[in-house]
């Protein structure tokens, strides 16, 4: 009987103590919304972003910061209808001070209309449509647009001695910017674009296009595709024994490209903001954490973008703490300068576009390596 009473008092004391502890801790928790496609036909990208975000969050929690951060993930399926519903949901939640996402420019822009009206900072890791940052001052992106990448590639191809180039890209808003930015600069340098065409993403058979390209006998081919179409293209180039050098953009940078294409990917050149064999510490830590979490050999460009986006947001939160509101977060995001991301140092300019460096790379012996200048 006595024991029972002792246990009871002890238990109550513990409970009261446990209740009291959080009050003592007083760590505020900030919430960030993340809209991304976790299902549907772009799910593979969204799941990559979620993994990157969780890695970043893990590292943040272990770093002993004066506040906690929670990320609320919502599945947009890359569908505008869902995207705007999620945007409204985030806007309603007073605890959410910033939003990451979405994957496609279309959904990002539609959601941006809502974030603009409600006043919520939005940082997209991959939206590359030129109009995205023009919607309002609340929109940010940390991916280099083709406005930067296209001219760089044009210079590279011109410097490699190519004067006649064929250009193909997927028929999406991104693909359109790939072609226009590259072609403008290449022509300005004095080169000649002998062939230019778009293809539907998911095209299984590139052989008619390849045959057309081969007929025009260009010195090189500049391509705007993601890794799935890229693998098909490279395989079929080999089939048709077309040996014209292939250049591509940072969007092709994904280990899956090599897995799908095998030896046929050898020799493809591309620009990249992220190379996993970069010896910098933050890159190596990220690569190791990625391997541990997903079991994949290396992360691609897009997961690296997401990782950086999350960290940029966290860094802005840190600068805004303890007066974190949506407005103050937006201002701190805009003030991001030389943020040391794994995809390069990031600074947001007056239009909230990132200024980053791109490296030249190529596929050698089944891996992506930097090209010596």
């Amino acid at each position, binding site marked *: 009987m006595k024991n029972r009473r002792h246990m009871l008092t002890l238990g109550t004391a513990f409970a009261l103590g446990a209740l009291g502890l959080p009050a003592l801790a007083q760590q505020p928790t900030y919430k960030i919304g993340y809209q991304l496609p976790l299902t549907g036909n772009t*799910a*593979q990208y969204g799941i990559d972003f979620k993994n990157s975000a969780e890695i970043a969050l893990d590292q943040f929690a272990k770093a002993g910061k004066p506040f906690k951060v929670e990320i609320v993930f919502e599945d947009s399926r890359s569908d505008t209808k869902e995207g705007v519903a999620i945007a409204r949901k985030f806007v309603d939640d007073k605890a959410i001070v910033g939003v990451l996402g979405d994957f496609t420019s279309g959904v990002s822009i539609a959601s941006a209309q809502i974030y603009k009206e409600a006043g919520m900072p939005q940082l997209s890791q991959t939206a590359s449509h030129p109009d995205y940052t023009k919607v309002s001052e609340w929109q940010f992106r940390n991916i280099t647009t083709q406005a930067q990448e296209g001219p760089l590639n044009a210079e590279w191809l011109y410097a490699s001695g190519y004067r006649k180039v064929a250009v193909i890209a997927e028929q999406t808003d991104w693909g359109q910017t790939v072609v226009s930015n590259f072609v403008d600069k290449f022509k300005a340098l004095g080169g000649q674009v002998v062939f230019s065409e778009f293809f539907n993403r998911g095209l299984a*058979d590139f052989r*008619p296009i390849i045959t*057309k390209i081969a007929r025009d006998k260009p010195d090189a081919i500049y391509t705007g595709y993601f890794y799935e179409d890229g693998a098909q293209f490279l*395989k079929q180039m080999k089939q048709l*024994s077309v040996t014209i050098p292939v250049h591509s953009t940072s969007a092709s940078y994904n280990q899956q490209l090599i*897995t799908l294409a095998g030896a046929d990917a050898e020799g493809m050149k591309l620009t990249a903001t992220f190379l996993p064999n970069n010896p910098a510490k933050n890159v190596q830590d990220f690569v190791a954490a990625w391997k541990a979490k997903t079991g994949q050999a290396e992360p691609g460009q897009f997961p690296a973008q997401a990782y950086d986006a999350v960290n940029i947001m966290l860094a802005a939160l840190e600068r805004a703490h303890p007066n974190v509101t949506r407005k103050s977060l937006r201002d701190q995001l805009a003030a991001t300068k030389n943020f040391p991301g794994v995809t390069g140092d990031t600074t947001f300019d007056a239009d909230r576009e990132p200024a980053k460096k791109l490296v030249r790379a190529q596929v050698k012996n089944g891996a992506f390596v930097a090209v010596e200048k």
Partner: protein
Amino acid sequence: MDYYLQQLVIGLSLGMVYALVAIGFTLIFGVLNVVNFAHGEIYTIGAFAGLLIFVTFAPPLVVVLLIVLAVGALTGVGLERFAFKPFRRFSDEATLKSRAMREATLMSSLALSIVAREGIELFFGSQFQALPLSHMLNSPIKIGPVTIVDGDLIIFGTSFLMLAGLQFVLKYTSVGLSIRAVSNNPLGARYVGINTDRTIAWTFAVGSGMGAVAGLLVGLYYGAIFPAMGFTPGIKAFVAMVMGGLSSIPGAVICALIIGISEALSSIFVSSVWQDLVAYAFLIITLIFFPRGIFGGARERV
């Protein structure tokens, strides 16, 4: 000249792929007069089943083909049981021939195709899956100025085998006889003692088995498979069938070749993004101007 020849050859191989799918599809439609919207999904299931088999056992290609054939046949029978049989519970002539029933079966097979596709996506993920590189059927072979792939020859051989085999079965076996009877007059066939349910199940088994094998071969040919891969071949098979005169399998094959060649040749003049338009344009033109199909012999008005 070489350029046009090469495009023509590419078109032929594209057409062969469509023909593979069209054979099974036309068999089912020709016999039962029902549009099987889920045929494209059986094609996908065949490809993914092949992937699973390669990854777990890695047997030689012929064994995989046979297993996939069986898987496809079983899936087809199951599909028939779920999506088509329940609508045959009324056996009077008026109901069997009614428009409402045809539309109901179209929608039920469409619904099942959605379920199947989403199921595959949930299970495998929506990205491209690579089939083992060692088994892929695309080592190039140069014949004069044009290059083809060994996969082309295999697909050609398989279509030929399927076509010949089907003609043999239809003409010289009792199952084939009952299939022809049911396709001619289902009620009459039942009156003379043919087990219509079983015959229909056999038709589905054969047609779906072929569809699944088609999926596997095409997967190996292009080297990558994904859950939505069945949609476009399904539509093109339907177009080929309508063009070919609705119940003629050789007609469907020839029209599939025509579609493939037209797509490749069209890319000479316009960008490849307009390629799909070719098949749809053929569909509309055939439906409106050639209601009996290009090769005639339709059984009903379109």
